[in-house]
Protein backbone atom coordinates (compact mmCIF):
# COMPACT_ATOMS: atom_id res chain seq x y z
CA UNK A 1 0.00 0.00 0.00
CA UNK A 2 1.41 3.39 -1.03
CA UNK A 3 1.63 6.29 1.36
CA UNK A 4 -1.12 8.85 0.85
CA UNK A 5 -0.16 12.16 -0.69
CA UNK A 6 -1.33 15.45 0.80
CA UNK A 7 -3.86 15.66 -2.04
CA UNK A 8 -5.30 12.28 -1.12
CA UNK A 9 -5.54 13.32 2.52
CA UNK A 10 -7.42 16.48 1.51
CA UNK A 11 -9.82 14.44 -0.61
CA UNK A 12 -10.30 12.05 2.28
CA UNK A 13 -11.11 14.83 4.73
CA UNK A 14 -13.52 16.45 2.26
CA UNK A 15 -15.23 13.10 1.69
CA UNK A 16 -15.70 12.78 5.44
CA UNK A 17 -17.23 16.24 5.69
CA UNK A 18 -19.61 15.50 2.83
CA UNK A 19 -20.53 12.15 4.32
CA UNK A 20 -21.21 13.84 7.65
CA UNK A 21 -23.43 16.46 6.05
CA UNK A 22 -25.37 13.90 4.04
CA UNK A 23 -25.78 11.35 6.81
CA UNK A 24 -26.41 13.63 9.69
CA UNK A 25 -26.92 17.24 8.75
CA UNK A 26 -29.36 16.97 5.89
CA UNK A 27 -31.57 14.32 7.46
CA UNK A 28 -31.67 16.13 10.78
CA UNK A 29 -32.46 19.50 9.26
CA UNK A 30 -35.10 18.03 6.98
CA UNK A 31 -37.06 16.57 9.89
CA UNK A 32 -36.36 19.41 12.29
CA UNK A 33 -39.76 21.25 12.06
CA UNK A 34 -41.58 18.22 13.49
CA UNK A 35 -39.10 17.33 16.24
CA UNK A 36 -41.65 18.20 18.96
CA UNK A 37 -44.55 16.42 17.33
CA UNK A 38 -47.35 17.51 15.00
CA UNK A 39 -48.51 20.32 17.30
CA UNK A 40 -45.28 22.22 16.72
CA UNK A 41 -43.31 23.79 13.90
CA UNK A 42 -39.61 24.31 14.72
CA UNK A 43 -40.46 24.34 18.43
CA UNK A 44 -43.26 26.88 17.96
CA UNK A 45 -46.69 25.74 19.11
CA UNK A 46 -49.15 25.77 16.21
CA UNK A 47 -52.97 25.54 16.20
CA UNK A 48 -54.69 22.22 15.40
CA UNK A 49 -55.02 21.63 11.68
CA UNK A 50 -51.94 23.72 10.90
CA UNK A 51 -50.39 20.99 8.76
CA UNK A 52 -53.47 20.63 6.64
CA UNK A 53 -53.58 24.38 6.00
CA UNK A 54 -50.83 27.01 6.09
CA UNK A 55 -48.38 24.49 7.55
CA UNK A 56 -47.92 22.85 4.15
CA UNK A 57 -46.64 26.14 2.73
CA UNK A 58 -44.36 26.69 5.73
CA UNK A 59 -42.94 23.18 5.37
CA UNK A 60 -42.40 23.64 1.64
CA UNK A 61 -40.57 26.92 2.19
CA UNK A 62 -38.46 25.36 4.90
CA UNK A 63 -37.53 22.34 2.80
CA UNK A 64 -36.73 24.59 -0.14
CA UNK A 65 -34.37 26.57 2.10
CA UNK A 66 -32.65 23.39 3.33
CA UNK A 67 -32.18 22.14 -0.23
CA UNK A 68 -30.86 25.54 -1.29
CA UNK A 69 -28.37 25.69 1.59
CA UNK A 70 -27.02 22.21 1.00
CA UNK A 71 -26.88 22.82 -2.76
CA UNK A 72 -24.82 25.97 -2.28
CA UNK A 73 -22.49 24.05 0.02
CA UNK A 74 -22.18 21.18 -2.44
CA UNK A 75 -21.63 23.43 -5.44
CA UNK A 76 -18.95 25.55 -3.78
CA UNK A 77 -17.25 22.36 -2.62
CA UNK A 78 -17.38 20.91 -6.15
CA UNK A 79 -16.01 24.19 -7.55
CA UNK A 80 -13.13 24.01 -5.09
CA UNK A 81 -12.31 20.43 -6.09
CA UNK A 82 -12.48 21.26 -9.81
CA UNK A 83 -10.30 24.35 -9.36
CA UNK A 84 -7.81 22.33 -7.34
CA UNK A 85 -8.17 24.71 -4.37
CA UNK A 86 -8.42 22.00 -1.72
CA UNK A 87 -6.24 24.13 0.54
CA UNK A 88 -9.29 26.36 1.02
CA UNK A 89 -11.21 23.55 2.78
CA UNK A 90 -10.99 25.13 6.26
CA UNK A 91 -12.25 28.46 4.91
CA UNK A 92 -15.09 26.65 3.18
CA UNK A 93 -16.02 24.89 6.42
CA UNK A 94 -16.04 28.15 8.39
CA UNK A 95 -17.85 30.13 5.69
CA UNK A 96 -20.58 27.56 5.14
CA UNK A 97 -21.04 27.16 8.91
CA UNK A 98 -21.66 30.92 9.27
CA UNK A 99 -24.07 31.03 6.33
CA UNK A 100 -25.85 27.91 7.54
CA UNK A 101 -26.27 28.99 11.17
CA UNK A 102 -27.28 32.55 10.23
CA UNK A 103 -29.88 31.36 7.70
CA UNK A 104 -31.36 28.73 9.98
CA UNK A 105 -31.56 31.05 12.97
CA UNK A 106 -33.03 33.76 10.76
CA UNK A 107 -35.73 31.35 9.64
CA UNK A 108 -36.47 30.26 13.21
CA UNK A 109 -36.73 33.91 14.33
CA UNK A 110 -39.03 34.66 11.38
CA UNK A 111 -41.19 31.63 12.26
CA UNK A 112 -41.54 32.80 15.85
CA UNK A 113 -42.40 36.28 14.69
CA UNK A 114 -45.04 35.15 12.22
CA UNK A 115 -46.61 32.04 13.78
CA UNK A 116 -46.69 32.72 17.49
CA UNK A 117 -45.05 33.92 20.63
CA UNK A 118 -42.48 31.41 21.71
CA UNK A 119 -40.98 30.48 24.09
CA UNK A 120 -43.96 30.81 26.41
CA UNK A 121 -43.16 33.11 29.30
CA UNK A 122 -44.29 31.29 32.42
CA UNK A 123 -45.11 33.15 35.61
CA UNK A 124 -44.29 30.10 37.74
CA UNK A 125 -40.91 28.50 37.21
CA UNK A 126 -38.76 26.04 39.10
CA UNK A 127 -35.07 25.41 39.67
CA UNK A 128 -33.18 22.41 41.01
CA UNK A 129 -31.61 22.86 44.41
CA UNK A 130 -28.51 20.86 43.53
CA UNK A 131 -25.14 22.55 43.40
CA UNK A 132 -23.62 22.32 39.91
CA UNK A 133 -19.92 22.09 40.54
CA UNK A 134 -17.44 22.53 37.70
CA UNK A 135 -15.46 19.48 38.78
CA UNK A 136 -18.54 17.26 38.29
CA UNK A 137 -18.50 18.11 34.59
CA UNK A 138 -14.90 18.96 33.70
CA UNK A 139 -12.00 16.65 34.43
CA UNK A 140 -8.96 18.78 35.23
CA UNK A 141 -6.64 15.82 34.74
CA UNK A 142 -7.95 15.42 31.20
CA UNK A 143 -7.60 19.15 30.56
CA UNK A 144 -3.97 18.98 31.75
CA UNK A 145 -3.37 15.98 29.48
CA UNK A 146 -4.82 17.80 26.46
CA UNK A 147 -2.74 20.90 27.18
CA UNK A 148 0.31 18.67 27.60
CA UNK A 149 -0.20 17.08 24.17
CA UNK A 150 -0.61 20.52 22.60
CA UNK A 151 2.58 21.73 24.27
CA UNK A 152 4.47 18.63 23.23
CA UNK A 153 3.32 19.02 19.63
CA UNK A 154 4.51 22.62 19.55
CA UNK A 155 7.84 21.67 21.14
CA UNK A 156 8.32 18.95 18.53
CA UNK A 157 7.52 21.34 15.68
CA UNK A 158 9.89 23.99 17.05
CA UNK A 159 12.77 21.65 17.66
CA UNK A 160 12.53 19.24 14.74
CA UNK A 161 9.92 20.59 12.27
CA UNK A 162 10.68 20.80 8.54
CA UNK A 163 8.65 22.90 6.08
CA UNK A 164 6.08 23.63 8.75
CA UNK A 165 2.96 25.46 7.61
CA UNK A 166 2.24 27.27 10.86
CA UNK A 167 -1.36 27.98 9.94
CA UNK A 168 -2.24 24.39 10.87
CA UNK A 169 -0.86 24.30 14.44
CA UNK A 170 -1.90 27.90 15.21
CA UNK A 171 -5.51 27.41 14.08
CA UNK A 172 -5.83 23.97 15.64
CA UNK A 173 -4.36 25.13 18.94
CA UNK A 174 -6.75 28.09 19.07
CA UNK A 175 -9.67 25.75 18.45
CA UNK A 176 -8.50 23.21 21.06
CA UNK A 177 -7.66 25.58 23.90
CA UNK A 178 -10.66 27.80 23.21
CA UNK A 179 -13.05 24.95 23.91
CA UNK A 180 -12.28 24.88 27.64
CA UNK A 181 -13.81 28.32 28.36
CA UNK A 182 -16.76 27.17 26.27
CA UNK A 183 -17.17 24.11 28.48
CA UNK A 184 -17.05 26.27 31.62
CA UNK A 185 -19.70 28.59 30.18
CA UNK A 186 -21.84 25.59 29.31
CA UNK A 187 -21.64 24.16 32.84
CA UNK A 188 -22.59 27.55 34.29
CA UNK A 189 -25.37 28.24 31.84
CA UNK A 190 -28.80 28.02 33.38
CA UNK A 191 -32.44 28.64 32.69
CA UNK A 192 -35.74 28.19 34.50
CA UNK A 193 -37.78 25.02 34.28
CA UNK A 194 -41.56 24.81 34.00
CA UNK A 195 -43.53 23.87 37.14
CA UNK A 196 -45.11 20.79 35.55
CA UNK A 197 -43.04 17.68 34.96
CA UNK A 198 -40.09 19.59 36.38
CA UNK A 199 -38.13 16.42 37.08
CA UNK A 200 -38.33 15.31 33.44
CA UNK A 201 -37.48 18.78 32.13
CA UNK A 202 -34.52 18.85 34.47
CA UNK A 203 -33.33 15.44 33.30
CA UNK A 204 -33.57 16.60 29.69
CA UNK A 205 -31.68 19.83 30.31
CA UNK A 206 -28.95 17.95 32.20
CA UNK A 207 -28.69 15.35 29.41
CA UNK A 208 -28.42 18.20 26.91
CA UNK A 209 -25.66 19.80 28.95
CA UNK A 210 -23.75 16.50 29.31
CA UNK A 211 -24.09 15.67 25.63
CA UNK A 212 -22.96 19.14 24.59
CA UNK A 213 -19.87 18.72 26.76
CA UNK A 214 -19.21 15.32 25.21
CA UNK A 215 -19.54 16.76 21.70
CA UNK A 216 -17.01 19.42 22.57
CA UNK A 217 -14.65 16.81 24.01
CA UNK A 218 -15.03 14.53 20.99
CA UNK A 219 -14.47 17.44 18.61
CA UNK A 220 -11.38 18.36 20.58
CA UNK A 221 -10.00 14.82 20.27
CA UNK A 222 -10.36 15.15 16.47
CA UNK A 223 -8.39 18.40 16.52
CA UNK A 224 -5.82 17.03 18.94
CA UNK A 225 -5.22 13.98 16.75
CA UNK A 226 -4.79 16.27 13.78
CA UNK A 227 -2.27 18.48 15.59
CA UNK A 228 -0.26 15.59 17.02
CA UNK A 229 -0.18 13.75 13.68
CA UNK A 230 0.92 16.93 11.89
CA UNK A 231 3.70 17.48 14.42
CA UNK A 232 4.99 13.93 14.02
CA UNK A 233 4.77 13.94 10.20
CA UNK A 234 6.59 17.29 9.95
CA UNK A 235 9.26 16.37 12.47
CA UNK A 236 10.40 12.93 11.45
CA UNK A 237 11.35 12.23 7.86
CA UNK A 238 10.64 8.55 8.42
CA UNK A 239 7.06 9.38 9.29
CA UNK A 240 6.44 11.12 5.96
CA UNK A 241 6.08 7.99 3.92
CA UNK A 242 5.14 4.36 4.12
CA UNK A 243 2.53 2.69 6.24
CA UNK A 244 3.01 5.10 9.12
CA UNK A 245 1.17 7.78 7.13
CA UNK A 246 -1.86 5.52 7.00
CA UNK A 247 -1.60 5.02 10.74
CA UNK A 248 -1.81 8.79 11.18
CA UNK A 249 -4.82 8.95 8.90
CA UNK A 250 -6.44 6.23 10.98
CA UNK A 251 -5.57 8.08 14.19
CA UNK A 252 -7.53 11.05 12.84
CA UNK A 253 -10.36 8.99 11.44
CA UNK A 254 -11.20 7.16 14.65
CA UNK A 255 -11.93 10.29 16.76
CA UNK A 256 -13.86 11.75 13.83
CA UNK A 257 -16.01 8.63 13.47
CA UNK A 258 -16.57 8.65 17.24
CA UNK A 259 -17.58 12.30 17.11
CA UNK A 260 -20.10 11.71 14.32
CA UNK A 261 -21.54 8.62 16.03
CA UNK A 262 -21.85 10.51 19.30
CA UNK A 263 -23.63 13.42 17.61
CA UNK A 264 -26.14 11.14 15.93
CA UNK A 265 -26.75 9.08 19.06
CA UNK A 266 -27.03 12.16 21.26
CA UNK A 267 -29.49 13.90 18.96
CA UNK A 268 -31.64 10.77 18.82
CA UNK A 269 -31.64 10.34 22.57
CA UNK A 270 -32.38 13.98 23.31
CA UNK A 271 -35.14 14.07 20.71
CA UNK A 272 -36.67 10.97 22.30
CA UNK A 273 -36.46 12.48 25.80
CA UNK A 274 -37.98 15.80 24.76
CA UNK A 275 -40.60 14.61 22.29
CA UNK A 276 -43.52 14.54 24.74
CA UNK A 277 -42.38 17.20 27.18
CA UNK A 278 -44.63 20.23 27.31
CA UNK A 279 -44.20 23.13 27.08
CA UNK A 280 -41.59 22.51 24.41
CA UNK A 281 -39.46 25.59 25.07
CA UNK A 282 -36.75 26.50 22.65
CA UNK A 283 -33.06 25.90 22.14
CA UNK A 284 -31.91 29.11 23.77
CA UNK A 285 -34.33 30.55 26.27
CA UNK A 286 -36.94 28.02 27.32
CA UNK A 287 -39.89 29.33 29.28
CA UNK A 288 -38.30 32.57 30.39
CA UNK A 289 -35.16 34.43 29.34
CA UNK A 290 -32.37 33.66 31.79
CA UNK A 291 -30.31 36.70 32.57
CA UNK A 292 -27.02 34.95 33.14
CA UNK A 293 -27.01 32.49 30.27
CA UNK A 294 -26.87 34.43 27.05
CA UNK A 295 -24.11 37.00 27.57
CA UNK A 296 -21.48 34.43 28.61
CA UNK A 297 -22.26 31.92 25.89
CA UNK A 298 -22.49 34.50 23.16
CA UNK A 299 -19.28 36.23 24.21
CA UNK A 300 -17.37 32.98 24.27
CA UNK A 301 -18.75 31.81 20.91
CA UNK A 302 -18.05 35.17 19.26
CA UNK A 303 -14.46 35.21 20.47
CA UNK A 304 -13.75 31.55 19.75
CA UNK A 305 -15.48 31.25 16.40
CA UNK A 306 -14.56 34.77 15.29
CA UNK A 307 -10.92 34.08 16.15
CA UNK A 308 -11.03 30.83 14.23
CA UNK A 309 -12.44 32.49 11.13
CA UNK A 310 -10.00 35.38 11.51
CA UNK A 311 -7.04 32.99 11.62
CA UNK A 312 -8.31 31.03 8.61
CA UNK A 313 -8.81 34.21 6.57
CA UNK A 314 -5.44 35.57 7.69
CA UNK A 315 -3.54 32.45 6.62
CA UNK A 316 -5.51 32.00 3.39
CA UNK A 317 -4.66 35.59 2.48
Amino acid at each position, binding site marked *: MNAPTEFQLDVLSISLIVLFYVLYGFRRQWNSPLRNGPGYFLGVQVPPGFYSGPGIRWLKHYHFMVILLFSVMGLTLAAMVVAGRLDATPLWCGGTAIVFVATMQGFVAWTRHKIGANPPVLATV*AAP*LEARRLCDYVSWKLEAFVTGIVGLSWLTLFLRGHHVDWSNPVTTTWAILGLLPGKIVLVR*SSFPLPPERTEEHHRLSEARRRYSLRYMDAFRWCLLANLAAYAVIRSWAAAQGGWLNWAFVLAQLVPWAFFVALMIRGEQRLAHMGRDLRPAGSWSTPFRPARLMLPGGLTWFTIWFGGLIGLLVFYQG
Partner: protein
Amino acid sequence: MFLSIDADDKIPIYRQVVDGIKALIAGGALREGMVLPSVRQVAGDLGVNLNTIAVAYRQLQDEGLVTVRHGAGAIVSATRPQGIDQSELRKLWRTTLTDMVLAGMNDREILAAAREELALLRKKGEPR
Protein backbone atom coordinates in the same frame (compact mmCIF):
# COMPACT_ATOMS: atom_id res chain seq x y z
CA MET B 1 -35.62 18.65 44.87
CA PHE B 2 -36.88 21.86 43.28
CA LEU B 3 -37.56 25.40 44.29
CA SER B 4 -40.37 27.21 42.53
CA ILE B 5 -41.38 30.85 42.34
CA ASP B 6 -44.39 32.66 40.96
CA ALA B 7 -43.65 36.05 39.42
CA ASP B 8 -47.35 37.00 39.57
CA ASP B 9 -47.59 36.31 43.30
CA LYS B 10 -47.93 39.29 45.66
CA ILE B 11 -45.24 37.81 47.90
CA PRO B 12 -41.79 39.17 46.90
CA ILE B 13 -39.58 36.67 45.07
CA TYR B 14 -36.87 36.72 47.75
CA ARG B 15 -39.52 35.78 50.32
CA GLN B 16 -40.76 32.94 48.11
CA VAL B 17 -37.20 31.64 47.89
CA VAL B 18 -36.79 31.85 51.67
CA ASP B 19 -40.13 30.12 52.26
CA GLY B 20 -39.37 27.47 49.63
CA ILE B 21 -36.03 26.55 51.18
CA LYS B 22 -37.51 26.59 54.67
CA ALA B 23 -40.31 24.29 53.52
CA LEU B 24 -37.75 21.85 52.12
CA ILE B 25 -35.84 21.95 55.41
CA ALA B 26 -39.04 21.46 57.40
CA GLY B 27 -40.11 18.58 55.16
CA GLY B 28 -36.75 16.89 55.67
CA ALA B 29 -35.65 17.07 52.02
CA LEU B 30 -32.82 19.43 52.99
CA ARG B 31 -30.83 18.11 55.91
CA GLU B 32 -28.04 19.59 57.96
CA GLY B 33 -24.73 19.67 56.06
CA MET B 34 -26.30 19.58 52.61
CA VAL B 35 -24.88 21.99 50.05
CA LEU B 36 -27.16 24.51 48.37
CA PRO B 37 -26.24 25.91 44.95
CA SER B 38 -24.50 29.26 44.70
CA VAL B 39 -26.40 32.53 44.50
CA ARG B 40 -25.33 32.86 40.86
CA GLN B 41 -26.64 29.42 39.93
CA VAL B 42 -30.02 29.85 41.63
CA ALA B 43 -30.44 33.31 40.10
CA GLY B 44 -29.66 31.95 36.64
CA ASP B 45 -31.84 28.89 37.10
CA LEU B 46 -34.83 30.98 38.16
CA GLY B 47 -34.12 33.81 35.73
CA VAL B 48 -34.09 36.43 38.49
CA ASN B 49 -31.65 39.07 39.67
CA LEU B 50 -28.55 38.02 41.63
CA ASN B 51 -29.42 40.42 44.45
CA THR B 52 -32.82 38.80 44.96
CA ILE B 53 -31.22 35.45 45.76
CA ALA B 54 -28.41 37.08 47.74
CA VAL B 55 -31.03 38.77 49.97
CA ALA B 56 -32.86 35.45 50.40
CA TYR B 57 -29.67 33.62 51.38
CA ARG B 58 -28.75 36.41 53.79
CA GLN B 59 -32.16 36.12 55.42
CA LEU B 60 -31.72 32.38 55.82
CA GLN B 61 -28.26 32.98 57.24
CA ASP B 62 -29.63 35.54 59.72
CA GLU B 63 -32.14 32.95 60.87
CA GLY B 64 -29.28 30.50 61.36
CA LEU B 65 -30.54 27.98 58.82
CA VAL B 66 -27.68 28.23 56.33
CA THR B 67 -24.06 29.26 56.26
CA VAL B 68 -23.07 31.12 53.11
CA ARG B 69 -19.59 30.45 51.77
CA HIS B 70 -18.15 33.00 49.35
CA GLY B 71 -18.36 31.69 45.81
CA ALA B 72 -19.13 28.16 46.88
CA GLY B 73 -22.82 28.16 47.64
CA ALA B 74 -24.30 27.66 51.05
CA ILE B 75 -24.60 24.84 53.55
CA VAL B 76 -27.66 23.96 55.57
CA SER B 77 -26.32 24.55 59.05
CA ALA B 78 -29.40 23.91 61.15
CA THR B 79 -32.90 22.62 60.74
CA ARG B 80 -34.44 24.94 63.32
CA PRO B 81 -34.33 28.73 62.92
CA GLN B 82 -32.61 30.68 65.66
CA GLY B 83 -34.24 33.43 67.66
CA ILE B 84 -37.85 32.48 67.04
CA ASP B 85 -39.86 31.25 69.98
CA GLN B 86 -43.21 29.51 69.85
CA SER B 87 -45.16 32.52 71.13
CA GLU B 88 -43.90 34.55 68.13
CA LEU B 89 -45.04 31.82 65.77
CA ARG B 90 -48.44 31.64 67.47
CA LYS B 91 -48.84 35.37 66.92
CA LEU B 92 -48.23 34.90 63.21
CA TRP B 93 -50.64 31.99 63.17
CA ARG B 94 -53.27 34.02 64.99
CA THR B 95 -53.07 36.73 62.35
CA THR B 96 -53.57 34.18 59.58
CA LEU B 97 -56.43 32.52 61.46
CA THR B 98 -58.14 35.87 61.94
CA ASP B 99 -57.88 36.54 58.19
CA MET B 100 -59.30 33.10 57.44
CA VAL B 101 -62.27 33.61 59.78
CA LEU B 102 -62.88 37.08 58.32
CA ALA B 103 -62.77 35.51 54.85
CA GLY B 104 -65.77 33.40 55.89
CA MET B 105 -64.08 30.03 56.42
CA ASN B 106 -65.63 27.81 59.10
CA ASP B 107 -63.66 25.74 61.64
CA ARG B 108 -63.78 22.58 59.56
CA GLU B 109 -62.49 24.34 56.47
CA ILE B 110 -59.69 25.97 58.42
CA LEU B 111 -58.63 22.67 59.96
CA ALA B 112 -58.81 20.94 56.56
CA ALA B 113 -56.67 23.69 55.02
CA ALA B 114 -54.13 23.38 57.85
CA ARG B 115 -53.97 19.60 57.44
CA GLU B 116 -53.58 19.97 53.67
CA GLU B 117 -50.73 22.46 54.03
CA LEU B 118 -49.02 20.24 56.59
CA ALA B 119 -49.32 17.25 54.26
CA LEU B 120 -47.83 19.29 51.41
CA LEU B 121 -44.95 20.30 53.65
CA ARG B 122 -44.27 16.67 54.60
CA LYS B 123 -44.52 15.64 50.96
CA LYS B 124 -41.70 18.01 50.04
CA GLY B 125 -39.40 15.90 52.14
CA GLU B 126 -40.21 12.71 50.32
CA PRO B 127 -37.83 11.60 47.58
CA ARG B 128 -39.37 12.03 44.11
